[in-house]
């Protein structure tokens, strides 16, 4: 039997059509952003195509490094919370009976397939100054003035956790599902206590999957634009907002592109890490394009 290898000339036209589609509508727009990040903002138009590194110099100015630090701080906090909450949820699903698991997964997915804007509005309706929560506690006479939850740093954090939680539960769940949970039982039967079992048996087996899952939640968080705006009252600086502002209010497309490129680099690294991880798992059976 012939060994199956991928040769470009064997690819049927249909593959090429798809490939062309991908290049045109995903790769090319991406390259445009990248190219624009090296261009100059011109007053007589939007951009003039003169090569410069000034946008990156600006992006690494102390002020924007602080913006980055603050964005990382908030996103990291939210990611860690998602992990702490998501782990038990995923663990529950991984150990549930098949029927319960199906139902649980469905329950998990419905809120996150409803529209993003609705989810935000839901948060506002509950946690806003006139939201359900404040209405209830004021009616109960616990406090006279509403508790300020939104329009603060905490509002952004809450929004991030709410929106990204399931995107982290799923990879944790996949990692746990692949792990043979009876190993944990075995460890405990052999006298390991809960904590030992958790740190020595369970965690080492799932930590890479979880780490990569976290990365894929963390990076999109940093690009958030609507959450800091509506839930944070636009009071906190956030990378995604600064980036979008460059395009829509500051008229500085090259600088906005530079920020977008920096964020994308982070994502590329995440993709690369995952590919390395999966390759290592798959063993040395890598196949290249001949």
């Amino acid at each position, binding site marked *: 039997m012939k060994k199956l290898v991928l040769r470009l000339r064997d690819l049927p036209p249909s593959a090429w059509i798809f490939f062309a589609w991908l290049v045109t509508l995903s790769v090319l727009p991406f390259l445009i952003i990248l190219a624009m990040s090296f261009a100059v903002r011109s*007053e*007589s*138009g*939007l951009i003039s195509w003169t090569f410069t590194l000034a946008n990156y110099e*600006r992006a690494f*100015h102390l*002020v*924007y490094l*602080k*913006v980055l630090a*603050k964005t990382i701080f908030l996103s990291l906090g939210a990611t860690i919370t998602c992990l702490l909450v998501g782990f038990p949820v995923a663990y529950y699903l991984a150990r549930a009976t098949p029927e319960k698991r199906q139902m649980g997964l469905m329950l998990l997915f419905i809120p996150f397939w409803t529209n993003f804007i609705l989810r935000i509005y839901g948060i506002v309706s509950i946690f*806003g*100054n*006139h939201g359900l929560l404040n209405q209830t506690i004021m009616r109960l006479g616990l406090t006279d003035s509403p508790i*300020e939850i939104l*329009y603060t740093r905490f509002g952004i954090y809450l929004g991030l956790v709410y929106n990204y939680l399931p995107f982290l539960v799923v990879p944790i769940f996949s990692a746990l599902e692949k792990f043979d949970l009876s190993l944990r039982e075995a460890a405990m039967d052999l006298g390991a206590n809960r904590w030992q079992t958790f740190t020595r048996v369970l965690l080492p087996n799932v930590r890479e999957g979880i780490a990569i899952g976290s990365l894929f939640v963390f990076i999109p968080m940093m690009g958030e634009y609507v959450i800091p*705006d509506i839930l944070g*009252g*636009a*009071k*906190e*600086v956030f990378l995604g907002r*600064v980036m979008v502002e*460059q*395009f*829509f*209010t*500051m*008229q*500085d497309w090259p*600088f906005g592109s530079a920020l977008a490129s920096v964020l994308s680099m982070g994502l590329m690294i995440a993709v690369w890490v995952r590919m390395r991880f999966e390759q290592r798992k798959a063993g040395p059976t890598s196949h290249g394009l001949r």
Partner: protein
Amino acid sequence: MGDQRILKVLLNGMLAIILIGGAGFWFARKSNDSAQPVLRICAWSNYLPQNVLTQFQKQTGIRVELSFVSSNEELFAKLKAGATGFDLIQPSDYMSRQMIRLGMLRELDHGQLKNLGNLMEDVRSPAWDPGLKYTVPFSWGTTGLVINTAKVPLSPGEIPGWGMLFESPDPKRTSLLDDMREVFSAMLIWKGSTPNERNHQKLEETLAGLRNIRENILMFTSEPRQYLARSELNISHAYSMDALQAAEMKPEFKYFIPREGAVRWADNFAIPTSAKHVAEAYRFLDFILDAKVASELALKGHFSTQNQPAWDLLPEAEKNNPVLYPDQATKARLYYLEDLGDLLVLMNRMWAELKI
């Protein structure tokens, strides 16, 4: 094998649907263009109520397709990047200047605008377009303060200043506009400078002042109306149009031009060079320059009209409204925003720094 034939038909059908649908869509738009005269206007929301557009259609048979932008920069980006299809746009003062300089606006044929003479004397030659070669002034207003007087009592006749924002009596119910230039301008005016300050030292001081109050106020928002309506905000930095529309809903909301002075803005109509329905655009321009139409629009939109006979038609209460038609002394303390050129890079950075 019958199955396969059905499937083949199915997939081919799908392709056919895409092609026919796409073509149909394209032709529908084409024929739409020729069948009934249309005019595509890109304006700010709240300016052109539906009944006025209906009236225009009745008079001229031209159907108006209205779309909105939320900022001058968005409008600029869309036009500059080749978005065609707008026949009439509504750039503000500084944006008009920029668009004229870049040749993005069509030179107006004053012969087609018989109502142009209705414009007030003092807008016949604004700084951004001397001689009105490209733009038709439509409205002006200010950026000031809206205060819920039921919650924040003021002594009778008191005209509050910018201190209401920066030393707010109720900071947790105070908002600033989410707009770099407006926020800096407010602080600059409060500190005795003008919005077009270029001195770095002064700008740094302004930033420091703003940073001090950032944590105290409730939020930055360019849409304070919803929060005002629910008493989440009692003092807001706002555009006069928005503020007066809020005041119409609840009389306890009062709009003020702060006593230290304020930013003044003007919105103009103009025809972009890429316009496809120029004749229709002229008809519309002439239509809104008509005294009756202009006065109705000004009354409903809560802006100051630039149209003399339209002003004459306004009810006395409106004419005497000091925030819409301020006296000369107040007018002297109103400033148009100028293009800051390279300074924008610095200010942009300061805007980010403000919120760190």
